């Protein structure tokens, strides 16, 4: 009995220690005095930020990585729970949110860079669907990702996009999902009839599964992406934005945009 307990405890302790060591090695490598730049992003959000093998990639993350390389900072990509993004930013866990982060509807909540991507909101439906225009969405179930401007607009809470609110009122139901991928899974499984989402993400989903989806021609609303910093942190924002401008001038931004199939880079 006693030896058994001792054995079990030793096993647990060992596992704990191993875990501790493993963590230690994996902790962000901030070399002596080197400034770290921690970018918060939603890793469920290709092509802007996602997991590829053992690293995090995407249009935005590659841009951030290039900014860090130019500034001599240590780049720390930090996937976050999208619902907790404000707490993460406020508490200093991350330095900015750079991840296809729509500016509309939250203009005053962050210290924004100027817009760098023009991102329209489109509607994705199953390839064989009878829906071919917004008018066909009447009485249908449509999914959106939680806490996104398009969700607000479709719910009629965005005065600048009243048309989207009108459209939303024709739906049978607006289903709010945790991630874009969940929304797409709902679409694939037939639980919803359409998904309203960012054009960049929609194109990526169509490329991932050729022949599975089609995109409606109409646009729900136009919006722009910016990089969001904590209120009051204009200094870091300006530094990052200056570095971004340099990348735009030397063609890095266009190269990455082509690589990830992003259309709307703002010059």
């Amino acid at each position, binding site marked *: 009995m006693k030896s058994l307990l001792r054995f079990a405890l030793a096993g*647990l302790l060992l596992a704990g220690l191993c*875990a501790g060591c493993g963590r*230690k090695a994996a*902790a962000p490598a901030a070399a002596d005095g080197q400034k770290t730049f921690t970018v918060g992003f939603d890793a*469920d959000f290709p092509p802007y930020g996602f997991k590829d*093998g053992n690293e995090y990639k995407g249009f935005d993350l590659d841009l951030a990585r290039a900014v860090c390389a130019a500034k001599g900072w240590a780049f720390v990509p930090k996937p976050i729970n999208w619902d907790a993004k404000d707490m993460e930013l406020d508490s200093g*866990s991350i330095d900015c949110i750079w991840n296809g982060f729509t500016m509309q509807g939250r203009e005053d909540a962050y210290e924004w860079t100027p817009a760098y991507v023009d991102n329209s909101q489109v509607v994705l439906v199953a390839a064989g669907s009878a829906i071919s225009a917004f008018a066909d969405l009447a009485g249908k179930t449509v999914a959106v990702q939680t806490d996104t401007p398009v969700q607000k607009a479709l719910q009629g809470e965005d005065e600048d996009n009243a048309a989207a609110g009108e459209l939303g009122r024709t739906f049978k139901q607006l289903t709010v999902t945790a991630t874009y991928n969940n929304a797409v899974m709902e679409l694939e499984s037939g639980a919803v009839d359409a998904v309203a989402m960012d054009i960049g993400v929609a194109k990526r989903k169509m490329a991932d599964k050729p022949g599975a989806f089609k995109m409606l021609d109409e646009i729900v609303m136009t919006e722009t992406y910016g990089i969001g910093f904590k209120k009051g942190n204009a200094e870091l924002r300006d530094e990052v934005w200056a570095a971004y401008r340099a990348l735009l001038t030397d063609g890095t931004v266009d190269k990455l945009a082509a690589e990830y199939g992003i259309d709307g880079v703002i010059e």
Partner: protein
Amino acid sequence: MQFWPMVGGLAKGLGTTTSIFCLTLLFSLPLGLLVALGRMSKFGALRQAMRLYISVMRGTPLMLQLFFFYFGPYYIFNLNLGKLGFWGLDYRFVAVVLGFSLNYAAYFAEIYRAGIESIPVGQREAGKILGFSRAQTFFRIVLPQVVKRILPPVTNEVITLVKDTSLAFALSVMEMFTIAKMEAAAHTTMVPFMVAGLFYYVFNFAVAAAMEWFEKRLDYYA
């Protein structure tokens, strides 16, 4: 999508899941015993404090508690979380283990209490008559019998814990389920979820087998 790199990523996540699991048990099992003893203490203040602790821990969502332990230092003490860490550990990980341990300790405490109260008072009296101190009576006579009685409910909690570790995604700790979600999003496929589900099942199968073995070892008396 390449299958094996994805499985490799999930396996790495399984490592983190296992760490959360082991550390939570390591801390919550002894802590639960202390809470149970406090809950049965003759000091009214301590007893009430432990009642409140158990009531809050069981009465609020675990995810909310995780938020509290991770973001609390900032919102309460204005500490910058980017600079917070312990022994080189990411504070996210520390907060997850802290939250899970304190939460599970509350559940374990009630299991311990039920177990301790089920031991006939005659056992304690026999210990006293034979000259054992209170501590000796508890650790040599009562607790070993308690362990045998509470194994089935403890197994229940332990298996729930394996699955609850996926709640660590709330704090973006890269455990298996968080990674499965990312892989699924990156490649628009359900396969990572199925593989993760299989991993969870195998993990729990092993846990259940270990607990069964443990129960068998204690089967020598009725």
